[in-house]
C-alpha cells in the first residue's frame, strides 16, 4: 500500500480543523477591518471623543482596535461554525 509506506497521512481532527479555520479567517478579516477602519479614523482623535483625559498612543490604539476586531470576528466565526456543524441532520435527509 502506497499510503502506508510512503505517504505522510497527517490529518487534523475535525475540532482542530475548526479551531484553526476560525482563528485564521477571523484574523484575516480583522486585519482588513483594522486597515480600513484606521484609514478613516485616527485613534488619537477617537480616544479624545470618548474621554478627553484618555491619552493613548497610536500604537496602543491600533493594537486595541485590531484585537477588538479579532475577538468580534472570532466570536462570529466560531458561533457560525458551531451552528453549521451541530445543525440537525434529519432536515437535510427529509428534504
Amino acid at each position: 500500500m502506497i499510503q502506508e509506506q510512503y505517504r505522510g497521512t497527517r490529518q487534523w481532527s475535525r475540532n482542530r480543523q475548526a479551531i484553526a479555520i476560525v482563528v485564521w479567517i477571523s484574523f484575516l478579516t480583522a486585519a482588513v477591518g483594522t486597515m480600513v477602519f484606521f484609514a478613516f479614523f485616527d485613534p488619537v482623535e477617537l480616544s479624545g471623543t470618548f474621554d478627553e483625559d484618555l491619552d493613548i498612543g497610536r500604537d496602543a490604539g491600533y493594537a486595541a482596535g485590531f484585537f477588538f476586531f479579532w475577538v468580534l470576528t472570532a466570536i462570529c466565526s466560531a458561533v457560525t461554525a458551531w451552528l453549521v456543524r451541530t445543525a440537525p441532520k434529519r432536515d437535510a435527509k427529509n428534504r
Partner: protein
Amino acid sequence: MSDRPDKEQAQVAPMFASAEKIYPREIKGRFESLSKLATISLLGLFYAVPWLMWDGRQAFLFDLPARKFYLLGLTLWPQDFPYLAMLLVIAALTLFFFTALLGRVWCGFACPQTVWTEAFIWMEQWTEGTRKQRMKLDKAPWSWNKLRRKGSKQLLWLSFSLWTGFTFVGYFTPIHELGPQLVTVSAGGWATFWTLFYGFATYGNAGYMREQVCKYMCPYARFQSAMFDEDTLIISYDEIRGEPRGGRKRTADKEALGLGDCIDCTLCVQVCPTGIDIRDGLQYECIACAACIDACDSVMDKMNYPRGLVRYSTERSIKGTDSKVLRPRIFVYAALLSVLFIGLITSMATRTPIILDVIRDRNSLYRELPGDMIENIYTLKVINQRNDEHSFHLAIEGVPGITLDGVPEVIVVAGGGVLSLPVRARAHRDNAYGIMEITFSVADVDDASLAMSETSRFLGPTP
C-alpha cells in the same frame, strides 16, 4: 491496474493513522531550481527592503504612528486610501489572471506559506539530514546526537523566526532604530509584542503546520478551482502514456510486458510536500510545487524514456484534444489589469499634493457684528503632502463681498505638515441671508496650477 491502491481505502486510511508527519523527500531538477530561486529572491526582498534608504530616510516605511506611508519619493496619507483599495483590486485580479493561466503557480512558488516552509525545510535538512535520516532520527530514542540535531534545528528556526518578526515590524517602525532598541530591550512595548507575535506565527506556520494551512485553512485553495478551465496549465499525470503502470527491469521491453511508461516507483508520492499521489488526478491538496515533475523526469531519464510523464499540461491536451492556452479569458484579464494599472499610475502621478478640509464651527449659527455684518467661523486644515515647505494663497467666494478675517496674506505649511487655521468669514447682511454655499480655495504661491478647493455653508439671518 491491479496493484493500484483502492481509492476508498486511501481516503479512509488517514483517519486511523492520524498525525503522522510528512517527510518530503528531497529532489533535484528544473522546478526545484526555480523554486529555490523564487524562495531566495522573495525572502531576500522581504529581509532587505526595510534597510534601503532614500533621501536620508527609510525607502519603504509604513509609518503607522505618524499615519504616513513612505514609498521611495512618494508620501501617502490616510486620505490616499483609494490608492490602496485600487492596489488590492489589482492584486486580486493578478491572482485571477495567473490562476487561469498557470493554475496554482502562486501556491507553489510565491505564497509566503510555501516560501517560509521551504526555508524551514532547508534548515531541517541541514541539521537533521535527508528524508530517510529524519525518519530514523524521529523513531530513535533520545540520545546526545538526537538532542544536538533537534536542538540546533530549533535554534535555527527560532532565530530565523525572531529575525522575521523584527523585519516585519521594521516595515512599520524605522528599522535602523528598532534593531538596537530590541537588543537593549528598550523598544516600545508594542514593537516588542508584534515582533514576538509575527515571529511566533512564522515558527508555527512554517515549522509545524506547513501543508495543513493549505489543506484546511486557506480559502484560496478551496475556491481556486473556480478560476480553472480546461485550458489552464496544471500539473498532470499522462494516464494514456503511463498506464498500465508496473515495475520492470531497465532493459525490459515494456511493450512485450504490456506496460505503460509508469514504473510505479512512487517517487512522485515521496517528494510531495502535501502527501498526495498526482497519478490520482488533480486534487485540491496539490499546491503545484512541481516536485513530482522533477522526480518523474529523473526516473524517465534513467529509463531512457522521454520526459514529461508528469508535466505541466492542460486538461484538454492530456485527454488528447487540442488546447489553446492563450484564450479570450486570458486577454480579457490582461486588458482589465493593464487598464487598472495605467489608471493607478496616472492618478498617482497627477494627484494634487494639497488637501483642504473645511470644518464649520458647530457651536454657533452666525454672529451679528456692528455695521450690519454677519460672521461665520470655520476651521481650515491645509495639508501639504510634499516633502518641502510651500506657501499658499487662501481665497473665498460664493457670497458677494465676502471677506476673510484673521488670515495672513500667505500661509506657510511645512513639508508633510498639517496647518490648522481658524478663520472668520464676514459678509454684509444685505448679501448674506439663509443658507448659502461658499467655496474656499488654496493655491500655491509659486505654481498657481497647484490648487484645491472645498465647499462649505455660510449661514445668515432668514430674510
